[in-house]
């Protein structure tokens, strides 16, 4: 049995004396409306303390017309009396009951009219109708007719008969706390010690109140933060750089040939702005043309300064990494960057024109391809992916290159990102004399898996309900 409310207790206390009573009667005792009493009674019934019977009684009320006829008699009764044993029709027409009374008498067939003379049929009377009107009872067949004539109406009256159950009686015997209930404690009640004698209302502790939503960090930002923390823990320096980059740093310094398809207008957001080339750009130019001083052949062809000066919205954060390396050519360098990158793509559920990329680099005297695989293993394991494997791939500025795949339960192997060692054609012109391990991954891909999103746009054009309902704590597993 659930806890009884204060009102249920009060009701039971009265019922303990009355045993059975009408809600109206109880309402007077409890100083409440009958409706409230009925509500409490039903609550008490749910708690087995009381029984509620709903009793429907039919009765009649009289219309104004009906009330009038009850007092002075039906018009046909009065007209019949005026007719007596016979009367002249034109005389009768002045009688105040003529209009209705004459119609009724004819309808009931109580009179005979010949020429101008009205004569009652023998032995007739309207007594039964009068009786039905004076004392209406449900079974009477004449009532229907009177209702039709609009003299009275049928009504239904609902009564609630409330009685106490044995269980209710024993509750009362055990003693009920009938003190007034308090909802919210006041300062005065706390300080004065009054709280000790107060009857604090008990809550149904299973019932959820209106939800509260904390201010919170975007679920996608949490994933970015998690990756950032992992890399900081692994000893990497965090980089930040501009969205607007010169083609030189976005492409040329990364040994992307000037006629490479990725540099075309349909894949990259170009800007009208240009920036002057760095002082020793010609070493990069020589690398493109002939391989500079390395074992490379270079791309050959032509290399135009104007093309390198043109600004773009960075297509990868590698433009930031490579500038960091150019400024810090001495080993060791371990750095990472998480930032937005841009591709000239038509936006749909799986493509965005801008998305977060994570990129890491390690430069040191004796680092090698195996170390790159080791870093990737470590990073993906820390992100919660148990299975990690690698396969050959191609990126214009790394050699050897690879793609990392992780195993996701229920989906299988998923490509997560690319990696490789910066080509010597990239590092040599910038005075970097040691191998640079580099890897990148699309952060949104992990976010889609973790957050179970079907549409990438939800990360940026989010539904507030999604932001409010996504819990802050997620298990650290891959997904």
């Amino acid at each position, binding site marked *: 049995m659930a806890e009884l409310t204060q009102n249920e207790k009060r009701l039971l206390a009265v019922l303990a004396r009355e045993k059975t009573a009408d809600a109206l009667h109880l309402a007077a005792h409890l100083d409440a409306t009958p409706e409230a009493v009925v509500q409490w009674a039903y609550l008490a019934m749910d708690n087995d303390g009381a029984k509620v019977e709903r009793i429907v009684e039919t009765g009649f009320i009289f219309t104004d017309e009906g009330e009038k006829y009850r007092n002075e008699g039906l018009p046909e009764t009065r007209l019949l009396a005026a007719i007596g044993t016979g009367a002249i029709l034109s005389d009768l027409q002045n009688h105040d009951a003529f209009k209705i009374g004459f119609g009724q008498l004819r309808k009931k067939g109580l009179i005979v009219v010949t020429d101008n003379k009205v004569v009652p049929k023998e032995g007739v009377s309207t007594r039964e109708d009068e009786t039905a009107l004076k004392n209406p009872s449900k079974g009477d067949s004449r009532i229907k007719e009177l209702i039709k004539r609009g003299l009275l109406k049928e009504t239904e009256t609902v009564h609630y008969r409330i009685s106490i159950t044995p269980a209710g009686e024993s509750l009362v015997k055990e003693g009920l706390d009938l003190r007034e209930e308090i909802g919210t404690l006041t300062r005065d009640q706390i300080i004065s010690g009054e709280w000790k004698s107060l009857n604090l209302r008990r809550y149904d502790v299973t019932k959820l109140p209106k939800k509260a939503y904390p201010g919170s960090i975007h679920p996608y930002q949490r994933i970015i933060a998690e990756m950032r923390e992992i890399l900081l823990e692994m000893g990497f320096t965090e980089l930040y750089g501009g969205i607007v980059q010169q083609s030189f740093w976005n492409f040329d310094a990364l040994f992307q040939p000037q006629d490479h398809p990725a540099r075309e207008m349909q894949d990259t957001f170009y800007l009208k702005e240009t920036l002057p080339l760095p002082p020793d750009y010609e070493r990069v130019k020589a690398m493109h043309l002939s391989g500079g001083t390395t074992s490379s052949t270079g791309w050959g062809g032509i290399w135009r300064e104007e093309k390198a000066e043109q600004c773009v919205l960075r297509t990868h954060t590698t433009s930031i990494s490579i500038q960091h390396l150019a400024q810090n050519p001495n080993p060791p360098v371990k750095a990472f960057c998480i930032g937005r990158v841009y591709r000239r793509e038509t936006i749909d559920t799986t493509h965005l024109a801008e998305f977060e990329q994570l990129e890491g680099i390690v430069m040191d005297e004796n680092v090698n391809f195996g170390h790159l695989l080791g870093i990737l293993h*470590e990073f993906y394991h820390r992100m919660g992916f148990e299975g990690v494997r690698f*396969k050959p791939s191609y990126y214009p500025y790394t050699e050897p290159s690879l793609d990392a795949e992780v195993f996701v339960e229920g989906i299988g192997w998923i490509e997560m990102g690319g990696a490789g*060692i910066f080509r010597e054609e990239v590092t040599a012109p910038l005075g970097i004399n040691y191998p640079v391990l580099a890897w990148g991954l699309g952060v949104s891909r992990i976010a889609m898996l973790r957050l179970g999103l079907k549409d990438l746009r939800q990360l940026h054009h989010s*539904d507030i309900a999604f932001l409010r309902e996504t819990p802050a704590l997620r298990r650290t597993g891959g997904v």
Partner: protein
Amino acid sequence: MAVITLPYKYLERLTRTDRRTILDKVALIGSDIERMEEDHAAVEFFPDRPDLFSPEGVARAMRGYLGIETGLPVYPVKPSGISFSIDPALEKIRPILGAAVIRGVTFDNESIQSVMALQESLHWAVGRGRSKVAIGIHDLDTVKPPFRYIASARTRKFVPLDYSEEMTMDEILVMHPKGRDYAKIVRDFPLFPLIVDAEDHVLSFPPIINGERTRVTMETRDILLDTTGTDARAVAVAVNIICTAMAEAGAKVESVTINGSETPTLAPAERTVSVKECNRLLGINLTTEEMAALLGKMRFGARPDGADRVRVQVPCYRADIMHDWDIFEDVAIAYGYDRIMAQPPATYTVGRPNLVQVFANFAREIFCGLGYLEVMPFTLTSEEIQYRKMARPEPAGTLHILHPITIDNTVVRTDLIPLLLEFLTMNKHRELPQRLFSVGDVVENCRTYQKTAAVSMHPGADFSEAYAVADALLREFTIDYSVRESSDQAFIEGRRADILVNSKKVGVFGEIHPVVIRGFDLEHPVAALELDLRAVPGYPFP
């Protein structure tokens, strides 16, 4: 990316093993299986390996990788006695010509399709959409050598492929579908490239279209290949890839004389590489013999040369081998990435957060404490959202995209409040109050820096709320600030204030103007604030 169709039966015959064995391993030489159909697989190869853009090329590589046939494939070349001359007037137009004769081909519908597909893939990957390299294939029996590659008047007429009437070259650029596609490559030259035979019949109008006369059919037995372009290396690679693919299919390649020299030779390039350098790069420990054997699997000719060196013959079709490390990658692939010991380097460094991100996180902490929800709008937006709906003038330093794809993405954001309002519009049906903040990059005069902003929408949102939140943010950031009445049209007059630091405006707050509220299709009062994070003491770039 190039997706190559590999018919199982043909592939099995060329590779000399079953399809399971091939498809199980094909990803390990660098590819992605797109899909497997009843009779063929569609496999994507990387753009640096155009030699794999045909079933013949894939079979050649897989025979090596699977150990069925290793080492350098040798393609004998006999002189055909056919010669080409090149008109010096082409120097500025399209100077490079490569050509070859390929005899004894047996075409069926499928193999014609396959050669066409290879040709198209090469146009894309090596030819940069035909501008750098364009390839033409002709039935040799329809024309008479010697051939001339000339700069022709644009009024020259011939019947282009798929047509029955003569057209001038100018007309072809306008009327022929290929002419329209590639017109931009030649349009601006006074003369057009043209290949004609001894009787002045037109073989080809490179890089646009062949003549109908030399159309390749199922009866064709001997082929003349022409390859023109602007880059000698790229033209040679395209010739080598097509010739060796057709040789793999059983044809015989013959050279031609171009301006006096015999071409192609299909001979390998030579490189001598260091085993020590390879081991150091990959983190493995190979002997010269082991390395030579691995390179043999990748179809290089390779033999040890002294204690540390391997002499490598690079097949003529390998366009990607520019540097010794390119050879080392093939060593790694042959060795197997899964056999290389994955171990993080011992390099000792200390993790260092970047202050920009540290301050951004600090803003997040403050706003979360105030009950605000973070949102991450796009950085690409429009003048409409950023300025017009905000009743604000566009600042001079706004960055415009040169070739936007949609009208929603025309500028890089300079302000965050408009994007937060746009966000409120998207969430009109959600419960109030809605309190949102964002922190992130903005760009002005090509310089990227960060701002933070917040909005609060509910029936009681007012200036005081905006002020209180702005003050909390500024206090927590220890920014010593003052305020003055603002003139920002996005806010209600008398309910708007600029945030000043050292008498310079660094932010704004107030009650959003009803015109702006309605402009964003909103219905409730909105309190808003925005702060340039460069105002934070100790910020990395003031």
